[in-house]
């Protein structure tokens, strides 16, 4: 069945390595990507005509970025590559896509979801003010457009991306006012044995930190975020937080980048009916996939951060592994030795993932401490008090029920930004563990769909 129509969604490290592996086995996949260029988030390629070199763009990861881009450039003419294309919905065997305002339907026999991740955010008072970005958003501004999100930027949250983006800003010459990390140093020490599963990555992380210290950037650990300061007219003017020692502090800035590591993009898998399961380590719902990337739905596979947040190196391996799983399911030959090596390298990355989750934990307790007037859902401007109200007065102790009553998660972002923080608020108010309040069900369209859309009759 070498004529199987295989569609890969996402041209990041997982999607590209998946396409490459399939092509080598004689299958020519369709590779759909929402972005204009390949590379995904981490290896995002600058627009045509921009001339920054690899080292400036990707730092220590320049070699990997270049290798991936070169692989893609070799693949590009041999596969059916469709950039700038959003898969906004799917039904069994068919994807609904929109590209340049035109709607089309693509049939598939097998689907490889390499949809990546976005920032995981915890609401904070004032985060609706102009000048508040996610860490990923601030990184895109720098990588794609070579601009900073502000004249003076505070990075607040936790996780490796916090230090990576802050140091990239420093390197690019931007003014970083402070790096505020909610996780205390002690967690890092405790997680060290697991982080040593990937000593080279750990070393790169330390170099990032060193660069921040060399640039005399104020780095505070174990902080408690209190408020993004500013007003509706002029936007962000500063950040207030409590230090690890319990002292209230304020830093002036005109932009703030927030984020607590990443959350997977699972909407398409959810629409396909794939099972998700609660991951205790990271405290969020992840796709249920086997070791090689098979989801609970036959013919649907997932690889990369969309399946499990393990970073770009793991995504490349997982992309290859998922491709091999599909080849095996199609009764085609696979390189068993390579497969074994891919699994082994992913095992150490799994250990490292757990280490990262322990070193930079998701700050669930902040949800309980949020004042009632803090906005939870920025699209619909719903406050924590309103959400708590539907839990308390209307018995909405489940995420989708609370959404129906309060509108949290109903807006333009479809819960991408608010549903995890919202779930924590609901759980805290109902005094139950967060997994018991469930997760927001995925609905089409995966991203807002322009009503200018024209149908292509094929």
């Amino acid at each position, binding site marked *: 069945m070498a004529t199987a129509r295989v569609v890969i969604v996402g041209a990041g490290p997982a999607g590209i390595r998946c396409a490459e592996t399939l092509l080598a086995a004689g299958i020519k996949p369709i590779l759909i990507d929402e972005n204009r260029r390949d590379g995904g988030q981490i290896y995002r390629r600058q627009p045509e005509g921009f001339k920054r070199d690899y080292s400036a763009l990707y730092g220590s990861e320049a070699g990997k970025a270049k290798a991936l881009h070169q692989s893609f450039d070799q693949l590009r003419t041999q596969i059916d590559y469709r950039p700038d294309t959003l898969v906004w919905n799917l039904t069994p065997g068919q994807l609904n896509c929109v590209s340049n305002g035109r709607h089309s339907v693509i049939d598939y026999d097998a689907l490889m979801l390499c949809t990546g991740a976005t920032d995981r955010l915890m609401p904070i008072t004032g985060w609706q003010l102009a000048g508040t970005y996610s860490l990923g958003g601030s990184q895109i501004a720098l990588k794609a457009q070579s601009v900073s999100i502000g004249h003076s930027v505070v990075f607040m949250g936790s996780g490796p991306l916090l230090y990576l983006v802050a140091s990239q800003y420093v390197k690019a010459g931007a003014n970083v006012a402070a790096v505020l990390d909610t996780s205390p140093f002690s967690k890092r020490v405790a997680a060290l044995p697991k982080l040593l599963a990937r000593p080279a990555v750990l070393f790169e992380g330390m170099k990032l930190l060193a660069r921040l210290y060399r640039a005399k950037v104020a780095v505070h650990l174990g902080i408690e975020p209190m408020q993004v300061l500013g007003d509706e007219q002029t936007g962000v003017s500063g950040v207030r937080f409590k230090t690890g020692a319990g002292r209230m502090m304020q830093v002036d800035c005109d932009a703030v980048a927030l984020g607590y590591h990443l959350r997977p993009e699972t909407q398409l898998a959810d*629409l396909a009916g794939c099972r998700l399961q609660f991951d205790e380590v990271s405290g969020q719902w992840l796709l249920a996939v086997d070791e090689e990337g098979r989801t609970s739905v036959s013919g649907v596979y997932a690889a990369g951060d969309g399946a499990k947040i393990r970073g770009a190196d793991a995504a490349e391996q997982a992309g290859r592994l998922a491709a091999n799983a599909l080849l095996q399911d199609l009764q085609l030959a696979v390189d068993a030795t390579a497969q074994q090596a891919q699994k082994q390298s992913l095992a150490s990355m799994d250990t490292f993932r757990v280490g990262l989750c322990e070193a930079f934990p998701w700050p669930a307790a902040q949800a309980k401490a949020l004042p009632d007037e803090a906005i939870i859902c920025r699209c*619909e401007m719903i406050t924590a008090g309103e959400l708590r109200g539907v839990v308390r007065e209307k018995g909405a102790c489940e995420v989708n029920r609370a959404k*129906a009553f309060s509108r949290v998660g*109903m807006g333009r972002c*479809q819960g991408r930004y608010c549903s995890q923080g919202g779930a924590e608020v609901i759980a805290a108010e109902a005094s139950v563990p967060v997994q018991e309040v469930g997760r927001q069900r995925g*609905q*089409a369209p995966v991203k*807002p*769909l322009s*009503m200018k859309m024209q149908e292509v009759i094929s």
Partner: protein
Amino acid sequence: MTPQKSDVLIVGGGFMGTASAFFLRQRGHSVTLLERDQVGQYASGVNFGNVRRQGRHLAQLDLANRSWALWKRMPELIGEDLEFLPSGHMRVCYDEAHIADLEAYAAAPEASQLDLEVIAGKALHDRFPFLGPEVKGGSYAPHDGHANPRLAAPAFARAAIRAGARVEERTEVADVQKVGGEFQVTTTDGRLFTAANLLITAGAWGSKLSEQFGEPVPLETHGPQMAVTEPVPYSLPTVIGVYTKIAEEVIYFRQIQRGNIVIGGGYRSRPDMVNRRAHVEPRSIVNQIEQMRRLLPGVVNLNIIRVWSGIESYTPDSLPVISASGKVDGLFYAFGFCGHGFQLGPGVGDVMAELISTGQTRTHIAPFDIQRFADPVPLTGLSSLQTTSKVL
């Protein structure tokens, strides 16, 4: 096991069941409502939210008028806001020939309380300048409007509870029997509920229960197709729907006060009755986008941000079942609302309470009697029922 006894037992916690529970309490009867999942989760919670009388089957307007009088008493009646806005409803057509149909409907004696006004041509476009040029005429209903379906049934359930009703969610009926003068309902968790009267308001699952009493109803299930845009400044108070005989042209929209435009109509989907979920068919969204651009050209600048569906049940004659059982004393039905039950909710609750309490009702519900399905007729035989019931 101690049976839990009440005057009336209601099976099904949608809008009809919760409203019935509320009005039965108003009349002083003890009530227990059993809901398998959560109150208002299916058809009651996912519909378009039209509080519309015009365009209904004329024989239904007596009931719709009674319901409208109750809607007008919101939010005081139940003490909760359902976002009801009697902001007017406009039924428009693309075909000049249909204007006569709209006029005939407006002139019908049954529709006299609706104060309908048929407008066409330039007068229509002067008054509703945002409508597309293909719109030829329309019937304006000043008293109709819209409300938020997600809130309605849960709010009625809470009002009923405050008035003394008992509402058991996540309680699935395993067995229903009538023993002597008493209905005995056993739930899957082993509880026993008893009552002298039983009201079936189980929507798409209503026939499963009615057939146990020898009164099956040939229900078909469909998933409504709903979409909503991002919010834009509130400027379209009138609910607008297209009157047409072409399925794809059926489209309706309303703008809520916070700005989003809710859109429904077109194709329907087939729900997954095993997992009790219904999805929106992608072709419905594509069709809705095309039809909306025709009806409201300015919409082209907006985005659809979310779509949803649910599980609605339809009878062969597109009329609901609202009646006492023809076979069993003390048994009553209100289900199968064919996608147009939302406006009727309060009225049906009030009528069922009256019927159960007094054995009769002042409202004309004869066309909705379950006995019309008593002698199964082949599908072709139903056309006579259609013509006599003058659907418009």
